[in-house]
């Protein structure tokens, strides 16, 4: 006991300098281990070559009214539909209170923007609907792109995996999906061309 007292000069409350050294050493090793772990976690995130494939240009001129095409952007399918006036009218007339997800889910608009048809499309190109074609439930590709597909109860898209129905503005109306189909960032480079991303 005498020797220990000599080694560690006790302070009034019973803690010693040795306690401090032990805690400091443990904290140092802990922080070091956490920092060393970081590269091993970060290596799993999308790499530089994946991030580089950021944008895709699409020529819309072959897509006639009522038709839809699917293009690939960042490995994801993007739905581009040239909507008929009836489809646009159906989408515009929906009351906001009927929507399960009130957000426009438009990457170019703030989160709070309401999910009106206007906020889901571009001005002057209201017939064109551009969406990431991935069901917001568990990532299946909804049906509705081809003319013969089941389009669901709201005439837009229907996800066969777990039964989600989307309307003609790609908004979730029925089923387990929590969100409207996402509108990717895109712009019209001319009247018949868009650049996604």
């Amino acid at each position: 006991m005498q020797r220990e007292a000599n080694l560690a000069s006790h302070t009034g409350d019973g803690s010693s300098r040795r306690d401090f050294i032990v805690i400091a050493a443990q904290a140092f090793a802990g922080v070091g281990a956490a920092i060393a772990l970081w590269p091993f976690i970060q290596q799993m995130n999308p790499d530089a070559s994946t991030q580089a494939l950021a944008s895709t240009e699409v020529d819309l001129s072959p897509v006639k009214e009522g038709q839809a095409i699917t293009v690939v952007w960042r490995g994801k399918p993007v739905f581009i539909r040239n909507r008929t006036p009836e489809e646009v009218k159906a989408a515009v007339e929906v009351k906001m209170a009927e929507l399960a997800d009130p957000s426009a889910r438009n990457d170019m608009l703030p989160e709070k923007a309401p999910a009106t048809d206007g906020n889901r499309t571009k001005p002057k190109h209201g017939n064109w609907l551009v969406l990431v074609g991935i069901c917001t439930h568990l990532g299946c590709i909804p049906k509705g792109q081809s003319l013969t597909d089941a389009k669901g109860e709201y005439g837009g898209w229907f996800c066969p995996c777990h039964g989600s129905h989307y309307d003609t503005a790609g908004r979730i109306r029925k089923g387990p999906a929590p969100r409207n189909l996402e509108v990717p960032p895109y712009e019209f480079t001319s009247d018949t061309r868009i650049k996604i991303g």
Partner: protein
Amino acid sequence: MATHESTFRPTTRFGKWLDARLPLPRMMHGQFVEFPTPRNLNYLWTTGGLLTFFLAVQILTGIVLAMHFIPSAADAFNSVEHIRRDVNYGWLIRNMHAVGASMFFLAVYIHIARGLYYGSYKAPREILWIIGVVILILMMATAFMGYSLPWGQMSFWAVTVITNLFSSVDSIIPGLGTRIVQWLWGGYSVSGTTLTRFYSLHYLLPFVIVGAVGLHIWALHAVGQNNPTGLEIKTASDSVPMAPHAVMKDAFALSVFVLLFAWFIFFAPDYLGHADNYIEANPLSTPPHIVPEWYFLPYYAILRAIPNKLLGVVAMFAAIIILCFAPWLDTSRVRSCKYRPIYKWFLFLFIITVIALGYLGSKPPEGAYVYWSRIFTAYYFMHFLIVMPIVGVMETPSTMPRSITESVLGRGGAPTPAKAAAAPERR
């Protein structure tokens, strides 16, 4: 359990030399030869041995398949076909691995049902039981990642759907779920990068399972085996040495089970799989009807039964995790359902529920299927949260034998010579 003197006697000079330095043969002898097993074990107690066998089969065949498989989006699908058609005996080894996964799950579900029926989760076997649940989760993760490797349509879309489960975190912290999913994928969608990392983990996890199985057996041998009566071993006449008694029984059950295994391998190797997985993965087209492998169907039904994404995911994981709490949710002081006249029927109902959920999970998510999925999902959780605690308190157990020996030989314990003469052993 080494309460008595070991009968292990090394005879050779090398044996004695080794025993003084690394008494591994002594430990193996103690744990797997003279280890006392209850004398009344039925064939359900052979599933542990079966599972060990299938773990070994999966690792052995997996190591061989890894020599021929190419884990990239461009080559994976073709390399599996190459294994099936060109590699010498590749068809056999690949079928053993694919069917072996199903047999592994079949055996583990019987093993779990046995534990539930005979109350093997109750004190003092709680840790043993929880390690078992951990092994089940590891098996599921391994099977899921292994299923992605052939890179067929079902592989691809199973990975997409299951990894997307984590995006439900978005409804708690916006953006975090998406970050997690992209971290799992290594991209903005499931891609070859995802395949390669799953391959790495699919190779790793079986060895983690081996470690967990070691702990499982250690915990088992620390507390001793349960048995159909749920009584502990009290006297020497309650037990027999593991070898040859239990070992021979295990070997016979294994031979029978391997017949089933072989029948699938040789006559119906694809019966338990899905035809769509022979179409190469196409990221732009979801198959009209995605179903997981049969052993995941009950959980899939629970996921789809709940109309809210986050709650569906939570319920699916909770369905497995809730098993961990069985030792504390069950309030009965009797272990075995043999002596639980009321709970026994609820447990049968639970087993029917799991099978029904499995059937519903294979059906499209619409109409009556959704309705019944909800009913059975409700019972699945009610069984643990309501039936287990309440029935355990209310029920009067039926008369139990006083010991394992009595359950086998009747009252009076060991047979008297007169009785033995009157009823000679059947041979």
